[in-house]
């Protein structure tokens, strides 16, 4: 277990470095800069703004400043030394160029819990609907119940989440004003966006779980157990369920990543102050610091989720050994 985690940590460092470098190069190779707007600045003023955000530095110096941990500006190690550390390695993502009153650290600190809450709700919906749907389908295969659950899951998979979102808003917020149309602040604000975001994943979970359960229930050991008179309930819960859950759990990693990165459309439709909107806006506005910060947060989150899923395998199924996975 320890070796597994150490190895993952080493890969993690390498991944993060690669992400930083690639993002840095990509961001600066697209045309237009953080300052370009439909009102061009006077050259003198533009130079002053560039100087404030170090955009006048050569690229290598900007890269080292972004990376850290030493701050290279006039307040850093070689200047008046009032601010020696800075950059990503000093956990300082720098000031946002678009939202000039806040640091990227602050934006992430404020928006990540919001996105996480939305993600948790979506995942909750996905698991609730998916597991119930899958269970019902698998226990009554071939019945009308099974068919309708499978039709629903096909719908959930094929409809994009923004279509589901618009439909939900129309039905449950405008026509029948049960839930708020958009906004943030109460648990009611989470229901519709969580559902819209989780629906495609619920559909996938339902399919995986149905297939897993049917396979588990067809095993010889299950037949033996039934022959020995073990109650059906106990067979399903204690013997079939754990192995049927393994594919669902392995899907949770990609699902969580998908929910995290897919939330930007839903956040926009429901006006939710999450990280997703900053991901797109950061890139569109050439807000180098914000785009880098959010990209890094996603990298870390996706990586951590995958490690968690690997650990969860071992918890569910003792046959899986972490040491051997590499």
């Amino acid at each position: 277990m320890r070796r597994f985690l150490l190895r993952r940590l080493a890969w993690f460092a390498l991944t993060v470095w690669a992400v930083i470098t690639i993002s840095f190069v990509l961001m600066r190779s697209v045309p237009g800069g953080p300052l370009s707007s439909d009102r061009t600045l006077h050259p003198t003023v533009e130079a002053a703004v560039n100087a404030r955000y170090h955009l006048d530095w050569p690229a290598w110096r900007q890269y080292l400043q972004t990376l850290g941990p030493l701050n290279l500006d006039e307040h850093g190690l070689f200047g008046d030394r009032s601010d020696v550390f800075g950059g990503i390695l000093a956990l300082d993502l720098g000031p946002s160029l678009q939202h000039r009153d806040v640091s990227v650290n602050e934006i992430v600190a404020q928006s990540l819990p919001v996105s996480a809450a939305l993600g948790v709700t979506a995942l909750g919906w996905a698991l609730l609907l998916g597991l119930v749907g899958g269970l019902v389908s698998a226990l009554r295969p071939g019945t009308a119940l099974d068919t309708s659950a499978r039709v629903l899951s096909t719908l959930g998979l094929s409809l994009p989440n923004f279509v589901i979102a618009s439909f939900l808003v129309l039905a449950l917020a405008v026509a029948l004003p049960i839930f708020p149309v958009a906004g943030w602040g109460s648990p009611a604000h989470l229901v519709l966006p969580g559902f819209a975001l989780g629906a495609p994943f619920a559909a996938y979970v339902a399919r995986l779980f149905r297939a897993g359960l049917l396979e588990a229930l067809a095993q010889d050991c299950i037949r033996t157990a039934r022959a020995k008179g073990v109650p059906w309930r106990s067979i399903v819960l204690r013997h079939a369920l754990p192995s049927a859950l393994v594919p669902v759990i392995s899907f949770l990693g990609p699902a969580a990543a998908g929910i995290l990165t897919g939330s930007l459309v839903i956040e926009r439709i429901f006006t939710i102050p999450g990280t997703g909107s900053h991901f797109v806006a950061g890139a569109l506005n050439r807000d180098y610091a914000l785009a880098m910060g959010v990209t890094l947060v996603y990298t870390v989150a996706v990586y951590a989720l995958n490690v968690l899923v690997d650990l969860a395998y071992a918890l569910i199924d003792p046959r899986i050994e972490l040491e051997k996975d590499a």
Partner: protein
Amino acid sequence: MLAMPSTSGARLALATALLGALGACVVAFALRSGRPRADFAFTGGGEIRSLDPHGVTGVPEGRVLRLLYEGLVARNPQSLAVEPAAAEGWKVGPDGRTFTFALRADARWSNGDPLVASDFEWSFRRMLEPATACEYASSLWLVEGAREFTTGLAADGTPRERDWSRVGIVALSERTLQIRLERPTPHFLPLLSLHVFAPVHRASLEPLQQQFPRDWATRWTRPGTLVTNGPFRLVERRIGEVLRFERNEMYWDARNVALRTVDVLSVESWSSALNLYLAGELDWVDGAIPSSLVPELLGREDFDPRPYLGVYFYRVNVTRPPLDRREVRAALATALRRKEICELVLKAGQQPAFSFLPPQVGDYRPPKTFGESAEYAQKLLVDAGLADAEGKLDLRALELHFNTSEVHRDIAEVAAEQWRAALGLEVRLRNQEWKSFLDAQGKLDYDLSRSSWIADYADPSSFLDIWTTGHENNRTGWSNRQYDELVTAARSERDAARRRELYTNAERILMHELPCIPIYHYVSQNLVDPRVGGFGQNVLNEQSPKYWYWRSDEELADVRAKPTRRSKRVESHGPSAGLYPPSRAGEQP
């Protein structure tokens, strides 16, 4: 290490319970702030750039900053006349370039400090300091010595030490501020009423800048730290979500401010903003209503599009043949049918534009310019030898460049089709994402490029300055000496009639030469609750939040009885008893 339960079923139950609890914690943490609805809530789009008046440029920022700050003078939200604000009055010297402002004795900062003339002097100095990186600094260069102070260069271009005493801004006493301009400038006072000329609180900002030279900006504009002098003060800020303001009881005119709390919501999607408005979560939405929804809103009493000082136009790259020929540009301008664009695509009552300036800029009246005629356009090309008598064109295909957006694409498609039908000209569309688009436009990498211009203040200079030679917003390669001379002369002309004439002549040249092809003039698209009183109706669509209030049922009935009112009544979400300022509380039941 925790003792693991023995069976996998129990492990599963434990894991599920742990995850569920964790999820509940995350949700609870993210939702921890509960805010009651403010007296008034509005949106003008997404998160604004800054609350530092010297760090902003845009219209959305202006809407928010007018809650927080008050400059020396302000514009009346109905007439746009310049009115006293933090200054109770001013005198203009006989030379027409010395302004002496008398500050109010009772003007205070939100922490109770008196607002004095040196606060303004320091704030204007901060604007001009290059380290502040204020993007509006160049608009203050009409003050004596200000340009030299920012650039560090003398008028002849030689380096010169920055010396504040040479700049024509000086606090003569605690309550007297004098500003000396380079030359008489009639539009100085309207310019000064822009939100960027607000004062900032030196006593709270300077120590922060010394203590945190790198990140003072992120510490200063926080609720509790930010000291301002406007009718409201900042009490909460959640990025991408909301800015919450409360009435500033230290404000000299607080007794005439009705609203106790104001929320500015950050809403990225206009259809969501519309939904929030219809649900009563927002009382005012100012922005781009999707044109497909406009027909449904027209006729409602809460949607009243009005002329707005903005022009939508195509830049023409005059450095690229065949667009270097005036005849080609004129043919393009006259072959369009703008009414079709306004009615088919835009739908909210936008007006076809035959001049760069909209017709509502103060006393200015645009000159008579070109008309629309496909025959005339063809004749121009034939006369120029670019088409034969049968109208067969000898012209390369042109490219129409615009930034990615549904409405720009629709307009471009209609325009391209009109040019094809009228002239047989092939026009290809090329769209780019916003920043790449700006980059290409700035490098003159285009034939025709979409643009718009919104006035800062209601004066021809706000529109016509940009077409002077080498102006950073010219971006067409066009240059005309006679035009430059007219605009320069008009800038400091003190006789109003003569000044108008100079601008009219300049615009006549512009519309003859056509480095830009005007398409339409904007309308404002406010959706505002019918119960809101004191709402500004002006061509800049500029609001003074201090005047907003809620009308009572009686007053609303009176307003609705007026014949000019649009017919289709809508439900109001405001308080039926109204909400009036403390000074008027006695009048109300």
